[in-house]
C-alpha cells in the first residue's frame, strides 16, 4: 500500500523539530546559513535545499498590522506519484518504491545531475565535494521497518501525518471542497506529500504547476518509440542507398548503350 504524508499547514508552529530530526537521522552536517533576503520570508533559515539540507521550514508573513499572519511550510522532496527524476536517472539510483518513497541508492549515482534539471520542484541538489546528488528519501528504510519518517515522528502538532495515499488524497479533496487550498493533489499528476492550507500556496512561494500531466509523461511517450524510430530510419536510408545505386547502374548502362 502506497503511503503519503498529509501536511496540514494550519497546525504548524514553526518549531523546526522536523529539520533537526532529518539532520540527525540522515547524519547531515550543519551548514552556515543566513536569514532570507526577502522580508516576507526573512525568518526562513536555512532558506534553500542543499546537499546537507533535505528539508526546511519556510516562514511566511502575510498581511500587516492587526491582520499579520504567520504561516510555516515544511518543504522537502514531494515524492511524485510519477517522478520525472526517476525517469531521467540513467543508473536507476533513483527508484519509486511501491510504498511511496522516491528512494535513492547513492552507490549507483554517477553525478550526471540530470535529476537536478529534471525535477519540477528543484529538490535534488548536487554535492560538489562527493560529486553525487542528495535529496530527501522519505526515510524509505524506516518505512520498510514499519516506522514513520523521522520528521513525521518529531512533529509535535500532528502537522505531518503518515497515512495511506488514497486516504490522504480523500482528505485533501474534502478540504478543497470546504474552501481550503491544496498542493500535491493535482500538481504534476499528484505527489505523495499532500498539503492543505488556508493561505493560497502562491503566497507561500510554492512553485505553480497548473499542468496535471506527470512531468515524466513526455519522456515516457518518447522512449516507447526509440526502437521503432531507429529501425524506420535505417530502413529508409537503406532504401535511399539502394535507389541511388540502381539509378547510377541504369545511367551507366544507358550511357554504354
Amino acid at each position, binding site marked *: 500500500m502506497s503511503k503519503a504524508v498529509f501536511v496540514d499547514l494550519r497546525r504548524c508552529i514553526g518549531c523546526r523539530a522536523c529539520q533537526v530530526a532529518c539532520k540527525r537521522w540522515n547524519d547531515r552536517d550543519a551548514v552556515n546559513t543566513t536569514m532570507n533576503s526577502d522580508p516576507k520570508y526573512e525568518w526562513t533559515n536555512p532558506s534553500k535545499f542543499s546537499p546537507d539540507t533535505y528539508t526546511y521550514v519556510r516562514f511566511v508573513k502575510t498581511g500587516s498590522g492587526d491582520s499579520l499572519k504567520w504561516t510555516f511550510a515544511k518543504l522537502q522532496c514531494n515524492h511524485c506519484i510519477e517522478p520525472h527524476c526517476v525517469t531521467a536517472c540513467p543508473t536507476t539510483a533513483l527508484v519509486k518504491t511501491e510504498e511511496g518513497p522516491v528512494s535513492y541508492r547513492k552507490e549507483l549515482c554517477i553525478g550526471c545531475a540530470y535529476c537536478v534539471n*529534471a525535477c519540477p520542484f528543484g529538490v535534488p541538489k548536487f554535492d560538489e565535494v562527493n560529486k553525487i546528488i542528495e535529496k530527501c528519501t522519505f526515510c524509505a528504510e524506516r518505512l520498510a521497518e514499519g516506522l514513520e519518517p523521522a520528521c513525521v515522528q518529531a512533529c509535535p502538532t500532528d502537522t505531518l501525518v503518515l497515512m495511506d495515499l488514497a486516504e490522504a488524497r480523500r482528505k485533501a479533496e474534502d478540504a478543497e471542497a470546504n474552501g481550503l487550498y491544496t498542493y500535491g493533489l493535482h500538481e504534476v499528476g499528484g505527489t505523495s506529500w499532500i498539503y492543505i492550507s488556508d493561505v493560497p500556496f502562491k503566497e507561500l512561494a510554492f512553485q505553480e504547476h497548473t499542468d496535471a500531466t506527470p512531468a515524466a509523461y513526455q519522456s515516457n511517450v518518447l522512449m516507447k518509440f526509440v526502437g521503432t524510430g531507429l529501425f524506420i530510419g535505417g530502413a529508409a*536510408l537503406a532504401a535511399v542507398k539502394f535507389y541511388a545505386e540502381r539509378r547510377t547502374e541504369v545511367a551507366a548502362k544507358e550511357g554504354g548503350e
Partner: protein
Amino acid sequence: MTEITWGLILAAELFVSGMAGGAYAFSALADLLGKGKYKVLSKSGTYTSLIFIIVGLVLLIFDLGRFEVDPLGMLNAYLHFPTSIMTVGTWIITGFIVIALATTVLWLLEGIEWVRKVLEILGIILGVSTCAYTGILLSLARGRLVWGSPYLPWLFIISACLSGIVLTMFMVPVLSWFMPRLFSEFKAFYDNKRDVVNVFNHVDRYVTVLIGLEIAVLILYLGTTPASSIYYTASELSGLFIAYIILGRLVPLGIIYYREKFQHDKKYNMIATVTLISQALVLFGGLLLRYVVLIGGQLVV
C-alpha cells in the same frame, strides 16, 4: 534560487558530440551518394567524427569528476534502458563510437567497400541520433522552463549538422598540416586550391541553407518559449548571444556570399584562407549557442 550544475565543459561536450554525429552523417552521405567525388571529405568526416566523439566522452568523464573515485561507475549509465533518455543516449553514443571506429579502420586499410557502406548507413542513423539526443536531453528536463520546447531538439540537430559539415571541411587542411605523411591524400587535395574552392563552394550551399534554417528555428524557439529572453537579457549571456548571431552566423554568411567576388579574380589561396576563417567562426558560434542555452536554462526557475 538558481543552481548551475551544467557549465562550460558540458556545453563543450554537447557541442563536440553533436558535431561528431553531424560530421559522420555528412561524410557517409557524401560517400554513399557522391559517386566517389568527395572521397577526401568522406574520409575527413569519418576520422574527425571518431576524434571528436572521443573528445566528447573525455569531457563528460572529466565533468562528472568521479573517475578517480569510481572509475567503472559510469557503466551504471547503461542500466536504465529504455526509460531514461540519458541511458538511451549512452547506448547510441557507444554504438556510434564502434561504427565510427570500424569505418575509420576500413577507410585507412581501404577495406571491403560494401561493408563500409553498410556501416555508413548504420552510422548515419546513430550520428543523427547523437545530434538529436543532445537537444532532446535538454527539452525533457522539466525542471528548466526555457528548455521545455519542441523546437530545441530541432535547433540542436540543425546546428550539429551544420557544425559537422563545416568541421569536415575545416579538418582537411588541419589534419594535413599536423600529420602530412598520414594524410598525404588530404595534402594533395588541399594543395590544389582551385578544386578545393570548387568543392567548398558546392558544400557551402548546404551550409547556407542550414544557417538559414537554424536562424528560422531559433526565432520560432525564442518566440514560443516562455522566459527565453533570458538568453539575450541576462548580463552574463547577452554579449555571447550577440556574438553567436553576428560572428558565428552572419559574418560567415557574408563571407560565403562575397567570396564569389574574389573567385572572378582567381585568388584561390586567399579564398581558401578566408573560408577557413569563416568555418572557424561557424564552429565557434555552435559552441556559443550550446553555452548560452545551457546556462540560460539554468538561470530561470
